[in-house]
């Protein structure tokens, strides 16, 4: 069974063919490295999967069922979560508040619903423990390292019982040491049976965690193969066009 399957997805913006009949299947817990040069269509593909906009043609299947996303919330409900490049978290709030941002738990005191801070803290502590991260729920995010911020962003995805997590350049803005931390988090997600699509320019990161590498070039899918059967040299060739297809 595939958790996500794309069938002949195409997207055109006026005269520009951003995606040209892309087909891709992702199994539960699989880590897919999505690579390609700037403008190759990576972001467009991610946005189609995340429900930011609908494809011009083609089908999206979640757990072998056909779906249509009209807005990001539809995709979220279907179990697709996005961890954005610029980290969609609020610096002035605590880690726990960020994990629960937009879906705060409440309890009733008489007629008023108040935020249940205690539950937020205990649940997010549990999530951080599952991710083997040392992030403390009460800490403010603006005092955290890049790796800890990623842990917060990823804990959000665990909270929503996501099936697929799309990560846009999660290792671009952080130090080398923290990269290892983030790659670790990706493995944790995979161990929990969550598929991860990792969009990255950093070849070593992709080869470190990915089960499968997918290459886009000018909107076309030119490679879809196991990372163990490929090499950084081959992928570079595929990205630049030195190698036509793999």
């Amino acid at each position, binding site marked *: 069974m595939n958790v996500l399957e794309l069938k002949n997805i195409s997207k055109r913006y006026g005269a520009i063919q951003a995606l040209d009949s892309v087909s891709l299947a992702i199994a539960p817990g699989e880590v897919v490295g999505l690579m390609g040069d700037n403008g190759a269509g990576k972001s467009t593909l991610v946005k189609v999967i995340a429900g930011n906009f609908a494809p011009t043609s083609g089908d999206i299947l979640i757990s072998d069922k056909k779906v249509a996303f009209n807005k990001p919330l539809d995709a979220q409900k279907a179990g697709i979560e996005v961890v*954005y490049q*610029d*980290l969609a978290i609020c*610096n*002035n*709030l605590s880690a726990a*508040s960020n994990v629960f941002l*937009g879906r705060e738990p409440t309890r009733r005191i008489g007629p008023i619903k108040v*935020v249940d801070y205690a539950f937020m803290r205990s649940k997010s502590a549990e999530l951080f423990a599952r991710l083997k991260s040392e992030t403390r729920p009460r800490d403010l995010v603006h005092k955290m390292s890049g790796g800890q911020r990623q842990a917060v962003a990823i804990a959000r995805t665990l909270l929503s019982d996501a099936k697929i997590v799309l990560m846009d350049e999660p290792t671009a803005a952080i130090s080398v040491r923290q990269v290892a931390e983030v790659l670790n988090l990706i493995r944790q997600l995979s161990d929990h049976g969550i598929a991860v699509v990792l969009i990255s320019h950093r070849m070593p990161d992709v080869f470190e965690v990915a089960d499968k590498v997918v290459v886009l070039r000018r909107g076309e899918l030119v490679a879809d193969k196991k990372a163990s059967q490929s090499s950084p040299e081959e992928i570079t060739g595929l990205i630049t066009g030195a190698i036509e297809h793999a």
Partner: protein
Amino acid sequence: MQKKDIGLGVLIIVVGAIVYMQNPLFLSPINLGNTANLIGLFGLFAIGQGFVIMTGGIDLSVGSVIALLGVLFVDMVGKFDVAWPIAVAITIGLGVLIGLAHGILITRFRLQPFVVTLCGLLIYRGIARGYTAESTAGFPFGSSYPQLEWLTIGRSFGVPHSFIAMLIVAAVMWVVLHHTVFGRHLCAVGKNEEAARFSGINTRFVTIAAYVICAVLASIAAIYFAMFTKSVQPSSHGNFYELYAIAAAVLGGCSLRGGEGSVIGIVLGAVLLQELQNLVNLLGIPSSLNFAVMGAVILLGVLADQQFAAYRTRRNTERALGLLQKP
């Protein structure tokens, strides 16, 4: 309570002690009652301003709203004999409309809050002056509205009801800001609107709600001010009040960059401002220097707060380094 609030409380007590030593009248029941009344009046709309500032916006129209709605309220009750509860409801309803207009212009039409509310400041003041043809709006001679007066300018055990009203509003807004989902979302929108939107928060609703809260509290303040002054002079009533509100909010720890603030801080900020006004009166400083004293103290307060925060980080770093060097 946050550290900042405690610092502000200490400042209020220190200033109060100095004034008391110079002039013991400071703690006389009459002076305390009058000051409490002013704190109530100014605190009411400062809390609303704080909410807007926490979204990263600003509302410059508060003073003009107080003038316009004050004129209308006085005319409704005094001239057109509208029953006062209906007049109160209409005034607050107008406040809701003004807030909605600000919020929609800012979120839907993507205008800057400064521009929108600056135009509001000019428009509402202009309408107030045009509507009254520059004449003062007042209640007819000898008229009296016992219940309305009890609610607004009455006192219980020497405590002015305007002050009690402000405390009630502050308590409600404290729960809203610190213990409801809306309050969480307000802080998130103020700091990182994009992140809030990605998290599924209806950021437009949150922003509009903040402006509505601000305008509604300004409309309630307008009623209290109109009853307090008994007549509304459309060209001067409420002048600069938005700046008092902004000063109180900033003193109280609201960041103009959004996302930070506390209701207790805003109330303490309003207390400090009125204490300074009072200080100018009691110490015989010429009242023409009023603004200069207020400006100087706010500047010193903010400066001291910043220096103290910097000192604290330095001390913490040194302590951490000291721990590291120990084997």
